[in-house]
């Protein structure tokens, strides 16, 4: 490009000499010089930083984030560089969530999607028209790496609901090379930003098996409401325990239409849900505020319901039941730890400054025994409080029936035989 501009200027020199009125040539020359200057200023790319600085200067990309510490919101913001977050589904919500976490300086992002960017995606944020045709993962990595080169980006272009995809998915979650000292899996949080029931069930399965905390997000097919939900295997309801939309609106989750067939979408609702999701993630990771177990968003009425969902003791997911059992077993230890912590807190509080110098009215705090009893009673899941009855029978008797009915006839069947029978039918 530079050579071309130089040649052009040389030609202009020759022209200028041969002409009687050089004024238009002067004008032309100044245009060419401007263009040459413009072509030289490459897009500026910052280099990686060693550690986050809280210095308040315009050139520090983290000064506004580190100020959270000075304001007393976050105790140690720099910890964000140790965290890995996996985002499944890089669509309207996932891509924006990825950008938010990237701008926050998250340590590592794992991105999963198998779709490509289409012009029909342009009513949402993040992707640009010039990225049409690229895989969503490639396009996201391109943009995110430019925004913040400090973030380690790993992308996986695959469908996690297939056998092979699921294996790659779980092994990538288990990979601890980024932070070998971390307990549990290799990631701190999984964010599900997918648009269909099958993929949510696959994320649920993986997280239940790995005992991995995750957050689910969704936007309704009419684009005017959404939700986020925290799922801690064993402790809160898993996705198979109670699909959130059934709870929220009585709609059967499985009947939801996906984007591409007839669903609507808005950049606003998607942006709000992504914001809620990442805010909850930051609170969870950096340990500030209260992490919402469920947060709904109804944009027509600006209604934000919250609730907590306990796991379903009759959940159809085997891994979920195992996690529930483990959680129950850990209950005494957790209670003891909580009590010890409370006592320690009380002690230090007493040691530091006595709350009151005198106690003129002999006021003392008494343990609330009754309250303790009621919480104990409700924690055993099978007993219902007085006055309540189950609408449906406790278990599906059908499974037992089958166990009795089968057994004898099954032995003689051979898989290969059956295969051949079908092939014979296919050939006929």
């Amino acid at each position: 490009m530079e050579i071309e501009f130089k040649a052009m200027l040389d030609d202009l020199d020759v022209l200028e000499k041969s002409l009687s009125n050089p004024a238009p040539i002067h004008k032309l020359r100044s245009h060419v010089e401007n263009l040459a200057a413009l072509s030289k200023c490459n897009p500026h790319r910052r280099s990686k930083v060693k550690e986050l600085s809280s210095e308040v200067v315009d050139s520090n990309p983290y000064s506004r984030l580190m100020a959270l510490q000075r304001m007393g919101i976050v105790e140690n913001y720099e910890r964000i560089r140790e965290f890995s977050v996996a985002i499944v589904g890089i669509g309207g919500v996932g891509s924006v969530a990825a950008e938010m976490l990237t701008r926050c300086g998250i340590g590592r992002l794992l991105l999963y999607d198998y779709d490509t960017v289409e012009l029909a995606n342009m009513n949402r944020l993040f992707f640009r028209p010039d990225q049409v045709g690229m895989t969503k993962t490639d396009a996201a990595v391109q943009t995110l790496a430019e925004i913040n080169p400090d973030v380690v980006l790993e992308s996986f272009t695959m469908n996690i609901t297939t056998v092979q995809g699921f294996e790659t998915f779980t092994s990538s979650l288990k990979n601890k090379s980024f932070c070998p000292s971390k307990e549990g899996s290799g990631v701190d949080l999984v964010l599900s930003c997918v648009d269909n029931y099958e993929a949510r069930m696959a994320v649920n399965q993986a997280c239940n098996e790995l005992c991995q905390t995750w957050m689910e997000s969704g936007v309704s097919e009419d684009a005017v409401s959404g939700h986020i939900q925290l799922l801690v295997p064993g402790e809160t309801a898993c996705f198979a325990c109670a699909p959130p939309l059934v709870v929220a609106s009585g709609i059967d989750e499985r009947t939801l239409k996906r984007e591409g067939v007839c669903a609507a979408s808005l950049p606003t609702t998607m942006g709000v849900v992504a914001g809620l999701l990442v805010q909850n993630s930051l609170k969870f990771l950096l340990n500030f505020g209260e992490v919402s177990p469920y947060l709904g968003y109804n944009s027509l009425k600006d209604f934000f319901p919250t609730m907590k969902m306990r796991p379903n003791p009759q959940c159809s997911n085997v891994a979920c039941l195992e996690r529930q059992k483990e959680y129950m077993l850990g209950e005494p230890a957790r209670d003891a730890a909580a009590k010890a912590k409370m006592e320690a807190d009380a002690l230090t509080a007493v040691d530091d400054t006595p709350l009151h110098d005198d106690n003129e009215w002999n006021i003392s705090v008494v343990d609330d025994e009754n309250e303790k009893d009621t919480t104990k009673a409700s924690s055993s899941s099978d007993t219902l409080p007085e006055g309540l009855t189950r609408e449906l029978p406790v278990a599906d008797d059908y499974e037992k029936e089958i166990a009795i009915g089968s057994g004898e006839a099954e032995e003689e069947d051979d898989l290969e035989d059956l295969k051949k029978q079908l092939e014979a039918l296919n050939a006929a």
Partner: protein
Amino acid sequence: MEGWDPNTKSTLTRIPLLATKAGPRDGDAWKQRLKEEYKSLIAYTQMNKSNDNDWFRISASNPEGTRWTGKCWYVHNLLKYEFDLQFDIPITYPATAPELELPEIDGKTQKMYRGGKICLTVHFKPLWAKNCPRFGIAHALCLGLAPWLAAEIPILVDSGMIKHKDDAASSAES
């Protein structure tokens, strides 16, 4: 099952139900499930043939039985339209149904997700969910794919989106 034609209903009642709730990651239980899948597919294919309503071929294309490929066809105005049929068994199977794909007509109809996955959301997914784990591949074909073909192929042919292979060949020659 309201709204289904009596023919489909009576066919459905004669496809053997499955019993084992197992997915491709469940080892021996999956083998058992696979046997049941074969049995119900064999019964359904035989039934179709004896009723002169043969309309698909499907077989497992890997030893684990997690990927299936074949053909399906639909007769409209006395012409036979044939399509490749393929699908994977999802890891959450049978809690979630297989996503049936007709890759050749990907992008030709709105009733399809990317990659040629036919839209089963309204007419089939709720039924599948209610009948888990008793429904299998044969039921997905009978209640998912068959009505989809019956609804979509006439529209696609009449609107010119798909052409019969003889027409396509002759128009290419001329």
